[in-house]
């Protein structure tokens, strides 16, 4: 029986179930939990980017007021505490297969909670001090004496990949842990050989960090009586944390409970275990007291998992008519000092041809260790990087060859009738109407009127630029999800293993469940984030949650309807097959008696039973959200100051469950993508290896007064890959943003030639580009 697809709630901007607690100060973030007898843990962190640990003297710290314990890597090893099993190589059937050189396994350097041999980045924790209060622990941490012997270090992405770069891991001959080739080299080379034009570029998509506003925190409690650990820690998936931390502690997963209720932002940075999660659990057992850790903002800047950091060398071959023939790309990802995730490299690798029909491509994908904090999937993992590469290349080609940049795109877009379309590196785009997105966004943005706006700005002595970008991205993610559907006389409960950090699952999942069961939205409650209730689930990343949740809820609903029919049949005295179900009501053709879900729940309860199903689903097929984006910027040539005047997007998210939430996701995604282009950057001093952005005073954030309001539209091309036709809505705002801002900047500075400057485009860089351009023009006139 197929559940009803008669939508009442789905597609509506239903106000969120989450909000009442969050607007009244009753949120349940990690640091909001405190336990009687709780002590505080503070980390001793490395000031060196690379150094041998010759010894750690904890004696003075142990003597300090209020100190309960000081722990080092040696203590953990003596107690049998293991490595974090990050499982960094993406492994669904649809992920590009990343390997070491010549197909060898990827070398994954160990990641213990505290290292014994050496520190590999500034900020790496080398010891934990636990004391009665946070302040006492901070004071005592200053007394831990670590004997470091500084080693040569490397932080720059390209430099780290050089054969003679300082090495992070003795087991590797250099720092390159992934070096694999994809696509069709022979045909790509042949296409380049016969091409009329070849356009190329090299760019470093710099490193940024996620900056969830809730600093990461963890509270561990070991219960001596039950032998169980409880960890409160906001993350991207409590079930994953439970499994991994059980391995770290060397115990059965059943002895670990992880609680992750309200999570104050994630954006990918919280998807993997942090060392402090295991450390508070360990210390709680050692001390027989709960132990809490909360990162300072500077610790978060230094040691939250970071994002991007990809060097791209890319070349596009075109024929004499501007048709794209082939693409060559060399992508080098800086994964930092521990290999936590190769998702950014992998996700980007599958999308190097972007929204365009390019018959052949060759890709060399490399990943490199460096003396920096580890990188991880960050909002739209890997996709803004490759979108930037292809979109900038197309603009460059249009300029160099004299094409209109929009016309050149139209000539090469993947067309709807080619769907499903397999791109040149093997990714199968499920559906999409790419040119329609372009048409619509140009209309919404009043692109036709931009020339007049530009003329008006120029008349005021300003520079004005109009940027454009298409994008296509992929949503893959962990393939397994589980849902428990429980119908009680008072309402329906859905227990599911995704992990929102603001995406509104308690609302959108309830909308889906309500419509599939035919019950009012208000009767459905979604339960998440406590592994004693949520037994399995893949967490939230890669835009997987709405698609996986709606699919497994759809399947669970079908099972539940069968159960309902059996129960109704018994009550009505007919065979289950004689019971019809529609719009939440069970009936037979012979009587006018009807039963709804809550009647059945009461009948079950009278028998001491519960009307429920548990359903597991495994779904590997990816989806490919896509869209287009236009922005207009104004620059003050005297200061280099940049203002975004208009920002317009069209995003195909597949079926949109809650447009209010999806628009909100787009807005936030835009801000993060624009942030990378204009303000944000994890800058490291090349001389000392010291990170220079460790506070909000040093790391440029998107703020109220540097962003405009946006115009966003949702396109719904239903995906054929899953029951409700969902794609994803969380990352489309971010994916084209660095490309579209750069496009606008190039347009604004066109009279000076395309600026040779790197993101983030701060006023000084823009002003300098204008001065350089003016000087060059003056010299030209003089000559």
């Amino acid at each position: 029986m197929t559940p009803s697809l008669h939508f009442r709630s789905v597609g509506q901007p239903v106000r969120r179930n989450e909000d009442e607690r969050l607007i009244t100060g009753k949120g349940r973030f990690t640091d909001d939990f405190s336990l009687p007898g709780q002590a505080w843990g503070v980390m001793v962190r490395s000031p060196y980017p690379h150094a041998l640990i010759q010894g750690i003297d904890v004696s003075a710290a142990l003597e300090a007021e209020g100190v309960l314990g000081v722990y080092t890597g040696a203590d953990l090893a003596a107690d049998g505490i293991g490595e974090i099993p990050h499982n960094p190589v993406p492994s669904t059937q649809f992920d590009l297969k990343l390997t070491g050189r010549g197909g060898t396994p990827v070398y994954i350097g160990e990641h213990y909670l505290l290292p014994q041999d050496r520190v590999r980045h500034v900020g790496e924790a080398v010891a934990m001090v636990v004391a009665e209060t946070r302040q006492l622990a901070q004071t005592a941490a200053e007394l831990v004496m670590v004997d470091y012997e500084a080693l040569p270090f490397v932080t720059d992405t390209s430099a780290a990949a050089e054969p003679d770069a300082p090495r992070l891991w003795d087991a590797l001959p250099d720092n390159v842990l992934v070096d694999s080739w994809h696509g069709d080299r022979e045909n790509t080379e042949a296409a380049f050989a016969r091409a009329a034009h070849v356009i190329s570029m090299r760019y470093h998509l710099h490193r940024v960090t996620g900056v969830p506003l809730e600093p990461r925190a963890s509270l561990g409690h070991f219960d001596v009586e039950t032998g169980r650990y409880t960890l409160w820690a906001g993350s991207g998936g409590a079930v994953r944390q439970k499994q991994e931390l059980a391995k770290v502690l060397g115990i059965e997963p059943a002895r670990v409970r992880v609680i992750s209720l309200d999570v104050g932002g994630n954006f990918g940075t919280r998807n993997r275990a942090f060392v402090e999660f295991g450390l508070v659990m360990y210390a709680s057992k050692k001390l027989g007291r709960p132990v809490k850790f909360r990162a300072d903002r500077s610790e978060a800047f230094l040691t939250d998992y970071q994002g991007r950091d990809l060097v791209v060398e890319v070349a596009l071959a075109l024929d004499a008519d501007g048709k794209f023939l082939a693409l060559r790309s060399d992508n080098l990802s800086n994964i930092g000092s521990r290999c936590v995730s190769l998702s950014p490299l992998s996700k980007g690798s599958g999308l190097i041809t972007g929204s365009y029909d390019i018959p052949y491509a060759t890709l060399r994908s490399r990943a490199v260790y460096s003396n920096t904090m580890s990188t991880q999937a960050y909002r739209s993992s890997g996709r803004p990087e490759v979108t930037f590469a292809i979109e900038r290349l197309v603009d460059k080609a249009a300029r160099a060859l004299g094409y209109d940049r929009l016309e050149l795109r139209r000539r090469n877009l993947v067309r709807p009738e080619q769907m499903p379309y397999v791109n040149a590196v093997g990714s199968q785009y499920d559906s999409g109407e790419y040119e329609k997105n372009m048409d619509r966004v140009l209309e919404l943005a009043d692109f036709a009127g931009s020339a007049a706006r530009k003329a008006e700005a120029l008349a005021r002595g300003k520079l004005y630029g109009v940027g454009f970008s298409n994008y296509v991205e992929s949503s893959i993610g962990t393939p397994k999800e589980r849902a428990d559907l429980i119908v009680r006389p008072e309402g329906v409960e859905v227990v599911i293993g995704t992990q929102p950090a603001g995406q509104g699952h308690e609302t959108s999942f309830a909308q889906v469940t309500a419509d599939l069961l035919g019950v009012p939205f208000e009767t459905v409650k979604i339960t998440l984030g406590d592994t004693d209730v949520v037994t399995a689930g893949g967490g939230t990343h890669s835009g997987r949650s709405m698609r996986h949740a709606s699919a497994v809820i759809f399947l669970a609903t079908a099972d539940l309807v069968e159960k309902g029919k059996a129960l109704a049949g018994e009550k009505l005295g007919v065979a289950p097959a004689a019971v019809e179900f529609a719009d939440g009501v069970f009936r037979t053709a012979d009587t006018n008696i009807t039963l709804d879900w809550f009647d059945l729940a009461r009948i079950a309860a009278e028998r001491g039973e519960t009307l429920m199903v548990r359903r597991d689903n495994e779904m590997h097929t990816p989806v490919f959200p896509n869209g287009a984006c236009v922005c207009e910027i104004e620059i003050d040539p005297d200061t280099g100051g940049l203002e975004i005047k208009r920002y317009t997007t069209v995003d195909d998210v597949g079926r949109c469950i809650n447009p209010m939430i999806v628009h909100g996701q787009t807005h936030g995604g835009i801000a993060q993508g624009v942030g990378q282009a204009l303000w944000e950057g994890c800058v490291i001093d090349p001389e000392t290896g010291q990170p220079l952005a460790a506070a909000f005073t040093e790391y440029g954030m998107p703020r109220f007064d540097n962003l405009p309001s946006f115009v966003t539209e949702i396109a719904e091309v239903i995906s054929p890959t899953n029951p409700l036709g969902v794609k994803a809505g969380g990352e489309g705002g971010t994916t084209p943003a660095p490309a579209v801002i750069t496009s606008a900047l190039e347009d604004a500075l066109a009279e000076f030639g395309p600026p040779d400057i790197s993101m983030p485009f701060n006023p000084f860089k823009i002003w300098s580009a204008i001065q350089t351009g003016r000087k060059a023009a003056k010299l030209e006139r003089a000559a």
Partner: protein
Amino acid sequence: MSLLTLTVNGAEVSREADDSTLLVEFLREHLGLTGSHVGCDTTQCGCCVVHIDGVSAKSCTVLAAQAGARKVTTIEGLAGGDALHPVQRAFREHHGLQCGFCTPGMIMAAAELIATYDGKLDEHAVREEMEGNLCRCTGYHNIVRAILAAAEEINGPDRVVRPASGHAPGHAPVEETA
């Protein structure tokens, strides 16, 4: 250690606390009022904004002792009883929050802005005045709309300039598919 006596959300409270205790620590750790959040250590993010004698203050940079003789209002006490303050209602209605971590500080700062702003509140003024509060989820778009809607409810339509919608009109209805 000293005995600190404060008026918080209309009630007088006394607790033994270290002299160096910050107001936000006092609220969170001593009184269990965990609605005021700590998002940074540099008075930048605004997650900890409370009202001290009706004026917005970042409670991470005020000693609890400094608030001794004054009236402190937190997000938990902004509205009376079970009712919601118009700013709280507007944040929900206009989807002005996602993860909700910055939200208490945003709401407190916005409530004071609306209560004290002399002129006609428009998008530009909201963006300028609220610059001391950071949000990482919303791109600020819907927060601006929430604040202007609440201002309209509190001060009347004559003292607000409504923002443009920001959404293209709806999204096309789609065919039912299985």
